[in-house]
Every structure is written in C-alpha cells, then in structure tokens.
C-alpha cells in the first residue's frame, strides 16, 4: 500500500500548492512533445489515437500519458471506450489513427506478444484444457520455442512459475484444471499468467468485476500490494468509482470515448473538471444546483439555496456543486424567525444570503438511508430539486419530514459552466480554508 499511502499523505500535507488544478482538457497543448513520464520504460503514451466501429467513435484520445511505475485506473461508464483503449494498448485492436508508444517506442504495428504487455481479462480467459501450471507457463514455453537461444530455459521456466505461484498462493493448485477452481482462484491464475512474463506494463480489464463483494475487497488490496512488489506500470480499467478512487496513484476518467480528466485520484475527486466527473465519482454523487447572481452580485441564489463566495462570482447563471459529505447540518440561520414548520410553510422559502462565505441550503428530509458509518439523507428543496447530505455516525439523524439546514464551506463549493458543465476556475474557495474546517476526507 505504500504507493497509495504515500500519495495520500503527501497530498494531505501540501494540498494548497502542488496538486495542479487540472485543466478542463488536460490532453493537449500544455504537454511538451517528448514527455519524460511517457518515455521511461513502462510509460504509455497514446498520441492521436482514434478507433471507430462502423460510424461509432469508440475512442478519440489526442494525447494521454501514463507515467511509468504508476498504478493507473481508467474509469468511466460502460461503453465509454476504456476497454477499447486497453485493447489498443495491448495490441488486440489496431487503432484507425494515431500511435501507441510504450517506453517511448512506437509499438502501433507490433504484435501483442512482442510488446512486453500482459493483460488480465475480465473473465480471466484461462485455457480450459490446461492445468493451472500449464496456463501460467504457456507464454514462457512459447518464448522458449520461438527463440531457443535467448528464450527461457526449462529450469528458468519452472523457477519463475514456482515463484509466481508462491506469490499468489497457487502452489497447491498447480495440477488443477480451471473448472476445478473457485472464482477467486481463477482470478489469481489469470494474474499469475500475466505477471510470470514480467511485463513492463500490466493491463487489467475489470479483473474484479466477476468476483463477489467479499472477495473483491481482498483482491483489491492484493492487487495494490502486488503492484508495489512488481514495481511495473499497471493500468486497471473499471466502471466502479470506488475502485477508481481507492486503488490507483493516477486516475483517468473517460466518457464517450474521450479522456475527460487525469490526475491523482484525490485531485480529480476534489477538483472535478466538469459535471460529468463530479457526478460520476463519489457516492452519493455531487449535488448540483442551478444558481444565478442576485442583489449586489456577491450572492448566488437558487431554489432553497444561497451562497456567498469569495472573489468575484460569475455574472451569469452557473451550476453550483457540493459533495454530500461536505455539507454540515446546522441550526436555522435566524433562530428567532420561528419554528421549522413555519419556515417550511412560509412564503419566504429561500434562505437569505449567508453572512459568512459558504453556501446555505434548506430542504425537507425525504429519504433517510443508514450506511453503517453514517447516514445519507436525501432532501427535497422547495420546488422539488433533490440533494443529498451525508451525516456522520454519532451526529443527530433527522427524521423524514424534518426541515434541514445545511451549510457548505466556501472552499468545498464547486462552480460549473451552465452550458458545457466545465469547471469555472481552478477552485472556488480561498486556499487554506480547505483543511482547516474539516480535514480532508475522501469519503
């Protein structure tokens, strides 16, 4: 876990400065021509890669660099091109345009077997007629056949297979056939078969999705540990946003065949490039409200919501977002104004402009979901808009029908373009206020 822990802690120490505010389209021009990360052995670069199926544009990546040695997670909804991208890197698919560079070398025309890339398939794709051992050493035996001089010797093959089996706890299963194995064991065989060839790049195509929930948690940790031991570049494709945030050191979010945002998971989570990323990552997803400037132009107001933000707010209507976990349930702003029921019924439905920076919302608790660590309350705004707020364990849990006031610190408020949904400004809150109020927590 060192990788993860390292980045998390370093991210935590110097949050204000070094996490670069990601540009909305991180792909293109700011990158220099020869990217040092992409050129190192194990680094992956996609340059102008386009893949079409008929008229459907499956993949369109002007530029993507995956740093050598990283554990990169590619995430997106199904059909977003992430698996196609992986297959293009592996060489199972030829791109219609563009180049694939591995360690700075153009491998676009190379056969999959010659790229130094291994792939773990979603269904593991074990050879059903071969024992575990044969499955694992198949690639090595082929290498020995193809090149008797520099290929691995028989002794070397058996040491390497034994090594990998020991590493993945398969030593007792070597004579079994795939059909005699459980799902978790098959997954480990698939993994063993991939890493026994010591690939510079290990590709994983949703390797956890066919495991049951219990196993998945363990397998996730095992994969992270394995990556640390191997030290190669790992690229994992998933549609599970929890896997995406928790496993990788580098995150690539895709949608409609395009890369939407890249960066360390924490940076992507905290500064989503657009409303797609904002709502795709995180559970429950980020709340979005249509707001417009009012009064002196310092306050953004929407249904059941008002926000005072530092700096100059945008002059036109925008989308205001906040994560359910960033909201804090608070007392009504003006306690003397009367009891809650009165406020609900009252004609003045909207909260008034909060005196201090931040957003203030009012809603009626509609659904209360207990999640173990806390509670998620889905609220309905005055005119039907829905939003959710997470309440941590121990705090007071409202009942259905209660009126809730929630305030969101200015640093945790996100603004997005009303049309394209692109993030406005690198961040909305003033730097520094970030860590002071609640500490950084992903969940």
């Amino acid at each position, binding site marked *: 876990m060192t990788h993860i822990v390292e980045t998390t802690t370093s991210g935590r120490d110097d949050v204000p400065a070094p996490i670069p505010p990601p540009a909305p389209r991180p792909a293109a021009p700011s990158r220099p021509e020869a990217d040092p990360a992409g050129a190192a052995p194990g680094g992956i670069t996609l340059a102008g890669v386009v893949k079409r199926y008929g008229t459907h544009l499956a993949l369109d990546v002007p530029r993507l660099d995956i740093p050598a040695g990283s554990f990169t997670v590619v995430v997106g909804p199904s059909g977003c091109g992430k698996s196609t991208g992986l*297959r293009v890197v*592996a*060489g*199972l698919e030829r791109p219609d345009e563009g180049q694939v560079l591995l360690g700075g070398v153009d491998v676009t025309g190379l*056969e*999959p*077997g*010659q790229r130094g*890339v*291994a*792939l773990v*398939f*979603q*269904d593991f*794709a*074990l*050879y*059903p*007629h071969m024992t575990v051992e044969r499955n694992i050493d*198949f*690639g090595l035996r*082929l*290498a020995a*056949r*193809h090149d008797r001089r520099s290929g691995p010797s028989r002794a070397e093959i058996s040491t390497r297979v034994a090594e990998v089996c020991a590493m993945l706890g398969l030593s007792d299963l070597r004579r079994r056939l795939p059909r005699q194995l459980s799902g978790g064991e098959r997954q480990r065989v698939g993994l063993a*078969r991939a890493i026994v*060839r010591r690939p510079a790049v290990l590709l994983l195509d949703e390797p956890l999705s066919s495991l049951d929930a219990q196993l998945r948690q363990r397998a996730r940790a095992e994969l992270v540990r394995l990556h640390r031991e191997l030290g190669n570049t790992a690229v994992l494709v998933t549609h599970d946003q929890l896997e995406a945030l928790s496993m990788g050191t580098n995150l690539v979010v895709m949608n409609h065949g395009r890369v939407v945002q890249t960066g360390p998971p924490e940076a992507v989570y905290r500064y989503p490039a657009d409303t797609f990323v904002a709502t795709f990552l995180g559970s429950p997803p980020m709340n979005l409200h249509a707001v417009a400037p009012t009064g002196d132009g310092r306050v953004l107001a929407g249904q059941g919501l008002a926000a005072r933000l530092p700096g100059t707010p945008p002059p036109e209507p925008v989308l205001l977002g906040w994560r359910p976990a960033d909201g804090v349930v608070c007392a009504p702003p003006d306690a003397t104004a009367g009891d809650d029921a009165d406020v609900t019924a009252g004609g003045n439905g909207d909260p008034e402009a909060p005196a201090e920076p931040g957003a203030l919302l009012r809603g009626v608790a509609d659904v209360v979901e207990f999640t173990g660590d806390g509670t998620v309350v889905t609220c309905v705004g005055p005119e039907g808009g829905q939003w959710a707020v997470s309440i941590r364990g121990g705090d007071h849990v409202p009942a259905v029908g209660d009126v809730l006031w929630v305030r969101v610190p200015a640093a945790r408020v996100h603004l997005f373009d009303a049309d394209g949904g692109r993030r406005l400004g690198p961040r909305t809150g003033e730097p520094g206020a970030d860590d002071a109020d609640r500490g950084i927590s992903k969940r």
Partner: protein
Amino acid sequence: MSSPSRTDARPAPALVAPTLVAPTQLAPAPVPARRGTGRRIARTVAHHAFLLAAVAVMVLPVLWALAVSFKTPGGVFDENPLPWPATLDNYRVATQDFPVWRLLLNTTVMAAGATLLQLLFAVPGAYALARFPPRGHRAVEALIVVTLLVPPQSLIIPLFLMVTELGWRNTYPGLILPQLVGTGLAVMLLRDHIRAVPATVLGAAVLDGARPGEALRMVVLPLLRPALGAVSILLFITSWNEYLWPSLIAPGMEDTTIQPGLAFFLTQEGSAYGPLLAGSMLATLPVVAAYLLASRRVTDAFMHSGLR
C-alpha cells in the same frame, strides 16, 4: 396455462397432442386431484406410444434384415419374424465365397482418407474464416454454402472424366479425392464451433505470444475436440455410405467398396438375399460402432451448432 381453470380450459385433445405442455408443469396445481392425475398418466402414455411407434418404423426394417441374415434360404420369405431354424451359412458365404473383407478394407481406406483430407482442409479454412475473416468473407461463405447445394449427381460426369484422364480409375485417389467436393459442410460446421471459442481465450493466447498456427494447434484444436469428433463421424458415415461414385469409378469385384459390392449378390441367376443381408450387417457394424463411440459428442456438437 396455469392453475385454477386448468381442467376446463383444455378439454378433450389431451390424448392427441401430448407434448406441448410438459406433465411437470401441471404438477404443482393442487386440485382436482384425481382427474388431473388420470389425465397426466394418459398424456404420458400417449406420448410414449407415439415415440415407440416412431422408433418401430425406423428400427423394424433393420431388425428384419438382421433376422433374415440368419435364416435358411428357404425361410427368407416366410413371415416368421424370428430366424428359426437359424443358420450362419449366410455369413459363411458372404465372408468366404465373396471378398467381403477386401471390400470392407477398401471402404475403410476410402472413408478414413476422405474424412482426414476433408478435415485437413476444413480446419484451417474454418479457422481463417472465423478468426481472420478476409475482406468479402460473406461472399466466400455464401460460395461455400452454394457448393453444398449442388446435387452431387450433377458433378458425376465431369469428375468421372477428370479421374479417367488422370488414370485413377480403380484406385484409392480416384475414390477419395472427388469426395473433397463436400468439404464445405465441414468448413461451415467447424467455423461455427471455432467462433464459439471465447475471444478472450484467443486474445490471451495472442498476448502470450502464440502465432496464429500455434494458437490453432495449442488452444483452438484442443477445445474443438468434441466438435472434431462429431464432424469426423459425420464425414466418415457419409463417405462410408457412398454408393454411386464407387460403383462408377471402381466397379471391379476387388476394387469397389462394400455398398456397391453388395450388389454382386443380386445376379441374373438369382438373388442371394441371405448372404446379401449378412453382408449388409457386416457393412453396417463399423458405422454403428463408430457412432456409438461418439454419439454423445455428435449430438452435443449439433446441439451447439444449431445445424440439422
């Protein structure tokens, strides 16, 4: 067709159309017990009676032939279904006065040769069509299907002339090679089976560095074994039962195969039905044995391919 008004809904035809609703589907319905049970029994009985009749239609002629092959010459035409008095004379005549072993050998060589050669061409062809479909592969596949639709008789004369030109009359090549005209069937059957091999497994082989030929030999063929078994049996039986071609191209008593060879028992001086049927039984045995050995695979393979 569920529970309550069940008995009213379907009145009389229970005995006529027994199959559509399986008896088990009716089982959970609790009442009315006695009538329901009686109906169900009647239905099952009718069902089995129908199947037995169908089996009888197919099997009785074979059994009758088997019986006649043990009868004395005088008893061939009597109506007694049992061969009594029984004799092995027919088999003695068939095997001693007649080159039945020679003919069986010829037939075996021909059928095995035709089967192997067809597989030799069909496997790579099917693999290529399934895994590396060339541009316009649909047209290629349509052409292959067309070769299956051409009646074999229409090819007899050109093939006969070609084989004669080559001087292959009364030879194994003359018997075997023209049968490769039917390879299309094997190609199409095997193509479907190769397509059924998961793409990820083949992708894994490619990533492991397997060249196309190695992927075929080490991954596809082992997974294709059941299908190969089924297709070989099919090809073998078809070739074994070939009558017209061997009778034209290799008509000699020692050179022909068993099917036309049996006709030698029907001479102008009279027809030796007993020995003829004894020879037929001997000709059938290898095929039956081959089928029984692989019947499970044959049915499996056809179930999977959805053909026939």
